[in-house]
């Protein structure tokens, strides 16, 4: 990890903690709704990975664009999508951010710079190169961020997107959330070179492997990538090493876990670590506890409203296929 991460101010740390708690509480609320049967279908949670969307979205500009995956609730929240409209989407309600059409794994919120989740592994990467390309002509100087997992690095479309972005020095930031698992299979068994960031140099682009559990490390690295992109320096691959503390999907029996894996991961998980750091800086236990309490209160209210919301009108099921 090339750069020394500078110490964030207590205020910045506190706001990171609050945001990560909002993400954590959102995911836990959605899990509750899925286990309770109010939500149906496959739901993929990012519990343990919150530092990455928090660090990355905190440097996002108004014209930038984010392309995420099925594991995208926290990225949408980081882009400013209201929790209620995310939960309503997961519940298939008319008030969902996509009116229930996308569901947990495929919703989109362009008004919030969130150009959608994607349930095809790697497919968002080429789309992000197009968003960056558009910025060359619309005068925004847009930077596009595409986030995907370690397993997606082995998908042809991601390769083509990285080479294209590097060849044309497109302002794209490829964020690889390396949580060591691709669904139920360990990434280190599926590659010859487990340090995925090494691919960046092969494409002729910048790349860094960072601690994906430290929002400040993510913010600084993604921030450098933004500067590089805006200055015409082209794309960057950021490999953010993290851990998924829950199953690949809600209901995953996780029989594939290695002994002690989750215990270790929990010690390093972003919220625990940051809360401890804040305590070291003398931030009071009450203030730290409030971050969680406020977040859970927000999600309770959001979920209640979402549950009360109407279902989409069946008469609209065929609308918006063509102009």
């Amino acid at each position, binding site marked *: 990890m090339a750069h020394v991460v500078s110490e964030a101010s207590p205020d910045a740390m506190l706001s990171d903690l609050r945001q990560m708690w909002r993400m954590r509480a959102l995911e836990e609320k959605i899990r509750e709704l899925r286990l309770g049967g109010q939500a149906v279908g496959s739901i993929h949670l990012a519990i343990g990975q919150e530092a990455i969307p928090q660090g990355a979205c905190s440097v996002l500009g108004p014209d930038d664009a984010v392309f995420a995956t099925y594991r995208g609730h926290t990225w949408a929240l980081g882009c400013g999508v209201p929790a209620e409209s995310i939960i309503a989407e997961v519940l298939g309600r008319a008030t969902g951010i996509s009116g229930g059409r996308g*569901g947990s*794994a495929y919703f989109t919120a362009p008004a919030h710079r969130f150009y959608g989740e994607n349930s095809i592994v790697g497919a968002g990467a080429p789309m992000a190169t197009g968003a960056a390309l558009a910025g060359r002509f619309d005068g925004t100087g847009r930077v596009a961020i595409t986030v995907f997992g370690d397993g997606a690095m082995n998908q042809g479309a991601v390769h083509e997107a990285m080479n294209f972005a590097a060849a044309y020095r497109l302002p794209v930031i490829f964020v690889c959330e390396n949580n060591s698992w691709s669904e139920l299979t360990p990434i280190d068994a*599926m590659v010859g070179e487990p340090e995925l960031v090494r691919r960046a140099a092969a494409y002729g682009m910048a790349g860094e492997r960072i601690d994906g559990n430290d929002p400040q490390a993510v913010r600084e690295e993604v921030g450098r990538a933004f500067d590089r992109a805006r200055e015409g320096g082209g794309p960057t691959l950021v490999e953010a090493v993290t851990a998924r503390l829950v199953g690949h999907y809600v209901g995953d029996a996780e029989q594939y876990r290695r002994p002690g894996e989750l215990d270790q991961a929990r010690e390093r998980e972003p919220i625990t670590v940051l809360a401890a750091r804040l305590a070291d800086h003398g931030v009071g236990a009450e203030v730290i506890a409030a971050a969680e309490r406020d977040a859970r209160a927000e999600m309770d209210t959001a979920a209640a409203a979402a549950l009360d919301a109407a279902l989409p009108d069946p008469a609209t*099921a065929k609308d918006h296929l063509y102009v």
Partner: protein
Amino acid sequence: MSETTVAVHAATATPTERKLSYGEAVNAALRRCLAELPETLFYGEDVALPGGVFGVTRRLHREFGDRVFDMPISESAILGSAVGAAMLGRRPIVEIMWADFSLVALDQIVNQLANVRYISRGDLAAPVVIRTQQGNSPGACAQHSQNLEAFFLHVPGIRVCMPSTPQDAYDLLVTAAYSDDPVVVIENRTLYSGEKVPVRVDGPVAPIGGARKRREGTAATVVTWGAMTDRVLAAADELAASDGISVEVLETPWLNPFPDAEVLASVERTGALAVVHEANVTGGFGAEVVARVAEQVGRLRKRPLRIGLPDTRIPAATALTDVIVPNADSVRDELAEWLR
């Protein structure tokens, strides 16, 4: 399929009966093929150590070791390596987790796999089985809900089947693995953990092709396949109970080769044809069935009917899919209206 291998095997076959769910029947068929055909390999994403995202392929890796392995998320590598391995004498069985995902690598099926035997004039064969599953399930998004059989059925050189019962899930996969031609076996995840029913296993390998008359009737012939079959049967029973109309239901688990003779004979008898599939109507294989009947049967009592997903994308909310994905009630209503 390879008459020789089948013959050889048929001799040694001693059928027994076991109670299996659809998913367990797939597992039993894979185990049998791996045991009987030493050239078989079985691989795909999450199929070996984890035993599959639906648990369908459990214990196969433990039993067959390196012949069963996990793949990177690289569908072109999965399918392309299967083509190459088959050219060199293996009989790969590969899994594409969702039919929707085949679209990132369709080249290897259409431009590569389907050409092997033809271009080499039979010097090479490509006995590859592609196991996949498709269709909508509650809450599934547009990228995990499509029914793509019509794509595969427009490709000369590959065989296509869609089992809907545990017995066919077993039989068709075994037949596919014994076939010296490529076969796409399209399963359906909503069926995997269905009821356990008696399944004849270890019997002779069935020849490729054929239809299943699932219900006797005189008012019309209803052709269907895949997960729609149960819904159509429920609709047909409802129709008989409520409207006293009895339709013949013909399931065609083999779509290539398609059982023209059985379908034509039934339509000649009933004088009316309806085709029901979950895929969207325009360009669906129902059009092919209607066209073949129109070309070969003279006058029908009624104009043919196609029932399928309307031509739209597929939303996640069940409040929306409930009104567009064909189900027993909607099929019953459409048939009743048509036959009224």
